[in-house]
């Protein structure tokens, strides 16, 4: 059953936000995108803090925003948890949670227990830590018995305990459609079956975490899942990037393509490897990050990309920030999709 249906646009200062999304009851959908892509604005649209320029918005099949209708926030049944929580600092934790006229005593005490707030229920909300504040903000929204729950970066800067409590709740809640805005692809993948990628006000990809991992549609999608992404113009077995770099492909293809280079498929050399049937590019080391067994190296040169090599290889090569290296990868490792 579709709980939330949004198909419309809103003119913003720098771009027009165009969205089409549907969320079912009991479903959690994650909205990912770079800063300033319009994620929070979408939540505000649904919450009734912004008005659609065109199109319409339905909650539980009822039109709540269109050219003709505009239902006030108060009557929308939407639980909005804004990024900075917006707690009523002068009230106690409990008074915050029971603020909504739709809340019931029973529900409030249940939420206080679920979100582990018993010991601070009489504390002034203004004195709560970041993690406590977020738990209060979410409980307060849920106590208003929403049909749609809107969460704006709910786990940013939270302690691990608060994160786990919130995740646990979101995974088991029933009866609502949840739209969660996040930066964190791991969080998105663990909480939701469907991710929506928003860039500069436009949805650039919708899919499961797996689909986005195997075929990211934009450089941003690729960077989310740690892949290198290169748009290029293919002509047979050769593709040329915007910067004029030629890449050898394993299959013949024509026209505009997106090429994904998995970081682990890239090998690094100090001297130019000779006689190899591979793509070889020169690059400079920008940054080095250690991740357990592996090292991720940000490279800049003819292409801007990330290589992931083992700690052993890293030590043998004796690499440093600013070094010039040769990066090589096989044509068969490239994932090429036409656009």
């Amino acid at each position, binding site marked *: 059953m579709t709980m939330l249906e949004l198909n419309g646009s809103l003119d913003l200062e720098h771009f027009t936000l165009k969205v089409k999304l549907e969320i079912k009851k009991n479903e959690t959908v994650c909205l990912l995108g770079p800063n300033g892509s319009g994620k929070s604005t979408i939540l505000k649209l649904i919450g*009734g803090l912004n008005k659609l320029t065109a199109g319409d918005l339905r909650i539980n099949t009822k039109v709540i925003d269109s050219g003709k209708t505009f239902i006030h*926030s*108060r*009557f929308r049944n939407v639980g909005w948890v804004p990024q900075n929580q917006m707690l*009523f600092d002068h009230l106690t934790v409990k008074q915050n949670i029971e603020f909504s*006229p739709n809340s019931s005593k029973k529900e409030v005490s249940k939420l206080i227990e679920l979100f582990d707030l018993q010991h601070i229920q009489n504390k002034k909300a203004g004195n709560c830590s970041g993690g406590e504040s977020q738990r209060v903000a979410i409980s307060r929204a849920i106590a*208003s018995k929403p049909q749609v729950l809107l969460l704006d970066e709910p786990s940013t800067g939270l302690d691990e305990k608060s994160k786990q409590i919130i995740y646990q709740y979101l995974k088991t809640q029933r009866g609502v459609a949840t739209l969660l805005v996040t930066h964190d692809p791991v969080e998105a993948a663990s909480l939701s079956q469907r991710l929506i990628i928003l860039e500069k006000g436009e949805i650039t990809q919708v899919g499961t975490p797996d689909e986005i991992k195997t075929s990211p549609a934009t450089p941003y999608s690729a960077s989310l899942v740690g892949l290198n992404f290169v748009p290029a113009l293919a002509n047979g077995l050769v593709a040329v990037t915007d910067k004029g770099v030629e890449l050898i492909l394993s299959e013949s293809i024509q026209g505009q393509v997106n090429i994904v280079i998995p970081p682990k498929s890239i090998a690094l050399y100090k001297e130019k490897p000779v006689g190899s049937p591979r793509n070889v590019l020169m690059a400079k080391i920008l940054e080095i990050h250690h991740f357990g067994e592996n090292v991720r190296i940000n490279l800049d040169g003819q292409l801007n990309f990330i290589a992931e090599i083992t700690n052993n290889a890293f030590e043998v090569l004796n690499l440093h920030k600013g070094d010039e290296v040769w990066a090589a990868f096989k044509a068969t490792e490239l994932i090429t999709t036409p656009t």
Partner: protein
Amino acid sequence: MNRIPKTIVLIATIAILFLMSPLIGLLQRMPWSGLTNLLGSDIILDAFLLSLFVSFSAALVVFIFGIPIAWVLARSNFSFMKLLRSVVLLPMVLPPVVGGTALLFAFGRQGFLGKWLNDWFGLTLPFTTAGSVVAAVFVSFPFFIVAVESAFRSINEDLERTAETLGASSSKIFLKITLPRIFPSILAGLALSWARALGEFGATITFAGNMPGETQTLPLAIFLALETNPEAALALSLVMIVTSLAILVPFRDQWLPSR
């Protein structure tokens, strides 16, 4: 606390000495021995009680009407709001005697409103205690409005929007969220406008006159006494200083956020 540069301390000290010198001058000439007699006199007692009545009545009127005005000024963005804001703040910069004259032309017996009040309700404002209150309200309004308007502005509107999404009515939001958050500013604004009303002289003497027991508030009594009985003027000044400090000192922290 950070170390304050010596130059700054020096400049601040000069300013403080300047601000204190009139006070020192007053205290130095104060007829301490005859003070009890002077303070017991009817004229001083009348002026003192009248000043309290006028200034507190003015503060009450300012409080009741000031909150809605401040709210409208803070939250509307009509283009004529800028003009309206200037008009509302005008009494702050206007010489009080001009204010008093203007009040006379509005509420005087021949004034366009005064005539109407007189004909329909038999109400006369000039040269009555009510007139003193009107003059005090006129000059002290802006002090309250400035304080409360900026408090309204400082509230993050998303806070009220969040309360709306929770299903709360606008009156509940105003009473439970907005008002408690601007309460300190309301107190500060009240203290400021009350102090302005207490010290009011120019508009009052122009519009309400200087009649002992009816419109002769402390500042007017001081002005009159200065000519005839300078010792009484000193004693009256002391009364004003003590009264002002008694009310204002507790509010000092409201104007400057405490550390």
